[in-house]
């Protein structure tokens, strides 16, 4: 039975996008007559939020329809998109299964809250309706990415969210000398590097399996495993697709666009660059878990990349002064955890962290937005301090988010992070090393999170309160904060450790999606921790989080002394961390400069001087020859006839020689 109404889930926000776009142009027309005219732009916020809310309702309906054991997915009729040749069609259907339902709820649910928040945050902006047009388009594309039945459909969403990211990062394109536009461009291009890899992976899969839809691909992967056939090409395909994931989900070596993406309005950072889009890569790998399970060496690579990214980004977050900068690096770092989980074969733990992270990181970003809003666009934490007195609601909810991020016991992040590290630990061998990196990063996380809290909300006020008048944000902004805070605190209930002797809800829920990958990767003997070991790891994680949170908080709660001391005496370490390990600098000075140089070299030396120079020389030569030949053109008919005859003879000779 086909459920064509599923198309409405991305369709509604898409309609919203078109409507808001129209409202924007109507507003522009109204402003042509009167620059101060309001126009119908104000309608855009409620319409956009309402339609995303409706999409959430529909997703919930679909979600409840697949709760039972007898039916775990809904599928629409396919859109026969690209007929590849006379027989094969690359089509797309909308599918809600256990995985896409969970992701869909996060995207529409958190997306709805952020839309509501944004109606307050963007109030008075001259591009208000345009902003919601982009934001709605983003939600639509994200839903296409998640709900598509085929990898081609996912790619449509994949590039679509990239486009929205580009447009929204560069939303304030004329500010700061055009830097947001540059940042948007950087994001788009770095994503495209990943996308090129994604395309090759898609083609290689098609070459092997002759299909684009996930069901066939995964079935073929299982069949390959059952037949014991060679997996070399499949491993390569998995690696190439992971390359795509590295771009979208900001992993090494393609993560440097994400910190710059903070040039966009803060609701964008919360929705796109924390809660949803950047988790696409994780979604893709869970979706293709049987394929990845066939290639343990690729999975190991995924885990290593994840762990390294987590550590490098986490350490860079330690020294950031920009409030959103800390959160940006923190996001990269947390995404690294998710890839570490995927590499360890802990698909469920990865999704668990995707969900809890969506709650607490969206909360932190929106909180940061509230702070920035209240501080009149100030983002430098060194110019904040003591804000808990001015914005109590933001402060309290921010604490909840910070607690969850740093993994304080019993909050959501604590459980999801613990589950990832537990899985890595259980694999043993060289995985202990990756576990160690993960634990180290947890320590960094706790430290930088509470440094951020201390610098922002505690200590002396490092601004002129009389001039600045910091203020709490309106209810339309703080209400979403409260909801997200509740989720950040209680989100752990989705996946309590089995030593608590309660069901792991998410594990049970995802079983139909992940069992194939589990069976291929681990067979009958999934690595398992003894209850004692697990209790120990849990306790150890709690201790690490508490200790470093305490250190981070107390070192910075009274002012900038600790920061200044580190910058003064930190030497090479401080420089390395300030520059995020110099990776971005390497790109701008190494790669970008080389490409620019190559472009100029090709355009000037090879093309203008070389090829075109030769052509012009040929032209000059021809003119000289023509001048010297002029005496043959003496006007006598006989002479012309002679030359014509000679020419014809040459032509005949040539043809004869060619054997015609």
């Amino acid at each position: 039975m086909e459920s064509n109404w599923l198309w409405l889930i991305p369709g509604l926000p898409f309609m919203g996008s078109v409507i808001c776009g129209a409202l924007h142009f109507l507003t522009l027309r109204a402003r042509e007559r009167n620059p101060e005219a309001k126009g119908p732009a104000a309608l855009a916020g409620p319409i956009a939020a309402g339609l995303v809310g409706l999409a959430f309702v529909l997703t919930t309906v679909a979600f409840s329809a697949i709760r039972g054991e007898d039916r775990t997915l809904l599928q629409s009729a396919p859109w026969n998109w690209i007929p590849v040749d006379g027989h094969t069609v690359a089509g797309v259907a909308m599918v809600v299964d256990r995985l896409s339902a969970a992701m869909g709820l996060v995207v529409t649910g958190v997306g709805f809250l952020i839309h509501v928040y944004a109606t307050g945050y963007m109030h008075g902006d001259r591009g208000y309706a345009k902003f919601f047009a982009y934001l709605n388009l983003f939600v639509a594309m994200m839903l296409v990415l998640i709900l598509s039945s085929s990898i081609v459909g996912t790619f449509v969403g994949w590039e679509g969210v990239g486009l929205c990211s580009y447009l929204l990062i560069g939303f304030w394109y004329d500010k700061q000398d055009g830097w947001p536009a540059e940042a948007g461009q950087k994001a788009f291009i770095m994503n495209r590097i990943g996308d090129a890899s994604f395309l090759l992976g898609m083609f290689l899969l098609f070459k092997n399996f002759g299909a684009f839809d996930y069901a066939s691909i995964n079935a073929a992967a299982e069949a390959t495993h059952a037949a014991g056939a060679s997996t070399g090409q499949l491993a390569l395909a998995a690696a190439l697709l992971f390359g795509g994931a590295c771009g979208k989900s900001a992993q090494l070596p393609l993560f440097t666009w994400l910190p710059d993406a903070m040039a966009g309005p803060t609701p964008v950072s919360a929705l796109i660059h924390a809660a949803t889009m950047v988790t696409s890569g994780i979604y893709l790998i869970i979706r293709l878990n049987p394929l990845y399970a066939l290639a343990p060496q690729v999975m190991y690579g995924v885990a290593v990349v994840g762990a390294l990214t987590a550590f490098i980004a986490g350490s860079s977050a330690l020294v950031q002064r920009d409030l959103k900068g800390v959160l940006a690096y923190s996001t990269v770092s947390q995404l690294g955890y998710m890839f570490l989980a995927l590499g360890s074969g802990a698909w469920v733990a990865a999704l668990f962290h995707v969900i809890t992270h969506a709650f607490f990181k969206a909360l932190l970003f929106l909180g940061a937005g509230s702070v920035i809003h209240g501080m009149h666009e100030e983002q430098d934490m060194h110019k904040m301090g003591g804000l808990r007195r001015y914005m109590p609601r933001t402060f309290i909810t921010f604490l909840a988010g910070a607690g969850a991020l740093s993994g304080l016991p019993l909050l959501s992040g604590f459980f999801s992070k613990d589950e990832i590290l537990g899985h890595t630990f259980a694999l043993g061998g060289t995985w202990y090393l990756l576990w160690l990196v993960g634990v180290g990063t947890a320590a960094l996380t706790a430290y930088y999170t509470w440094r951020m809290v201390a610098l922002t909300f505690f200590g002396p006020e490092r601004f002129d309160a009389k001039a600045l008048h910091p203020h709490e944000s309106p209810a339309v902004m703080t209400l979403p904060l409260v909801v997200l805070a509740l989720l950040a605190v209680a989100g752990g209930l989705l996946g309590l450790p089995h030593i608590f002797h309660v069901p792991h809800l998410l594990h049970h829920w995802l079983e139909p999606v992940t069992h194939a990958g589990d069976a291929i990767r681990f067979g009958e003997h999934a690595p398992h921790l003894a209850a004692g070991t697990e209790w120990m790891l849990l306790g150890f994680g709690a201790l690490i989080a508490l200790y470093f949170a305490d250190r981070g908080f107390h070192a910075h709660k009274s002012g900038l002394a600790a920061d200044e001391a580190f910058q003064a005496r930190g030497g090479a370490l401080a420089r390395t961390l300030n520059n995020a390990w110099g990776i971005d600098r390497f790109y701008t000075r190494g790669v970008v400069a080389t490409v620019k140089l190559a472009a100029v070299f090709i355009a000037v030396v090879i093309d203008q001087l070389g090829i075109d120079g030769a052509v012009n020389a040929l032209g000059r030569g021809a003119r000289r020859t023509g001048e010297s030949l002029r005496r043959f053109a003496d006007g006598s008919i006989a002479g012309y006839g002679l030359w014509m005859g000679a020419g014809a003879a040459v032509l005949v000779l040539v043809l004869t020689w060619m054997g015609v």
Partner: protein
Amino acid sequence: MLLSLLTFLPLVGALLVAVLPTRGNAALRAVTLGVTLVVAALGVWVFLGFEGASAEAQYVESHAWFTLGNIQVTYRLGVDGLSILLVALTAVLMPFVAAASSGHIHTRQREFLVWLLVMETGMMGVFLALDVMLFYFFWEVSLVPLYFILGIWGAEKRIYATLKFFLYTLSGSLLMLVAIIAAVYGSGHSDIAGITDWAASQPLARTGWLFAGFAIAFAIKVPLIPFHTWLADAHTQAPTAGSVILAGVLLKMGTYGLLRFGIAMFPAAAISAAPLFLALGAVGILYGAFLAMAQTDVKRLIACSSVSHLGFVVMGMFALTAAGLRGGVLQMINHGLSTGLLFLLFGAIYERRHSRDIAQFGGLAACVPIFAFFWTFSMLASVGLPGLNGFVGEWLILLGTFQASPLIAALAVTGVIFGAVYLLKATRGLLFGPVIHEENRSMPDLRLAEIAVVAPLCLACLWIGVAPGGLLNKTTGSVEALVQRLDAARGTLQSAMLDDVERPR
């Protein structure tokens, strides 16, 4: 009769415009627009009636024309899956060009419109001719109008650009003429089907030469590197209407020729030469992209992007797989639409500011938001964003190439990255950042007439991007027949290599 109408109605229109006794230009423009609209309607009619599943030429008209010795040259028109999309594109694009030209052609309008219509006849004939002599006739007819359009209505360095264009094209034409004469006398046929049949029985040593003659002639037209340097000058100097026709249709005569006279006529030779053309295509993609990155002249940048995009087309066709061929044919249309749009849009800005230097702009998104919207849309179509037309073509081409040669595909796929680099860079330079030049602030936004030209083309990009089947299914029969013939030729080539026996000459 339908195809003859399609071909010669513009010529009739040209005569009409030439002799119409009126002093004002409005009537002339109206006649031109009317004629192109009728042709467009006819083109759409032919397109809708075309049976995509069939490999046969349709709407065929055939009359004896003249004889060369004992060889019968025929006036033979027809349309098949390789040409139907280009016929439709030409027919549909011309009214837009005619409408847009009123904005920027201010002198000698009557002449301009005459040349425009003559050009349409030439282009239609090229795509419809099923006889090589007739093809050659139309080919030459189509060159003359552009020569004048460039030379009379071009920008400051128009004479240099015109001469270059003319010499390049002439060299190609002569080479093609030699190849045509050789093929006609060798086979004793002048119609394409006859030559094709004859070529199938000939040894590679002979068809190889013929293939080379045709291929180089068309490579100049495409242009493939290293024959591309006329394009940037011609595009930069041409008036907007000229650039649009050049990018939209004229260059496709080259890729179409490669397909019809290279691959379809000499499959065995094409198979042998495919690695070279795959490589040239892939290198062209990157070379064009790097060239574009270094440009500061917006029109030149778009011209260089054409080199890159046409590299995709050539690569896809010479993948010699169904996906690659279909993608190549579709991408000809896509490039015509999206690059045509970019030229039209920048043309509108050029009319207002009379500068092509990107440094003269910046922050236009705030000054001319409607222009900004359409530019961004067209740029994204060109970049190959899924949902718009460019993606479908590029994706099919890359897929087809991957099936033929994963390594070439891996090289070419980086074009997806560099393509984004130069187009985003141009967009950043035009639209974003603060407004640096005060005169841009008072620049008027797109007028309704201009919107009426670009909006339908943008809709076409969207339509092809979302439902490409409407176009692709028209190619199915012809492409499949071609792939079968390629397979057969491949078999013959292999057995020839295996036998290694002297064949009777």
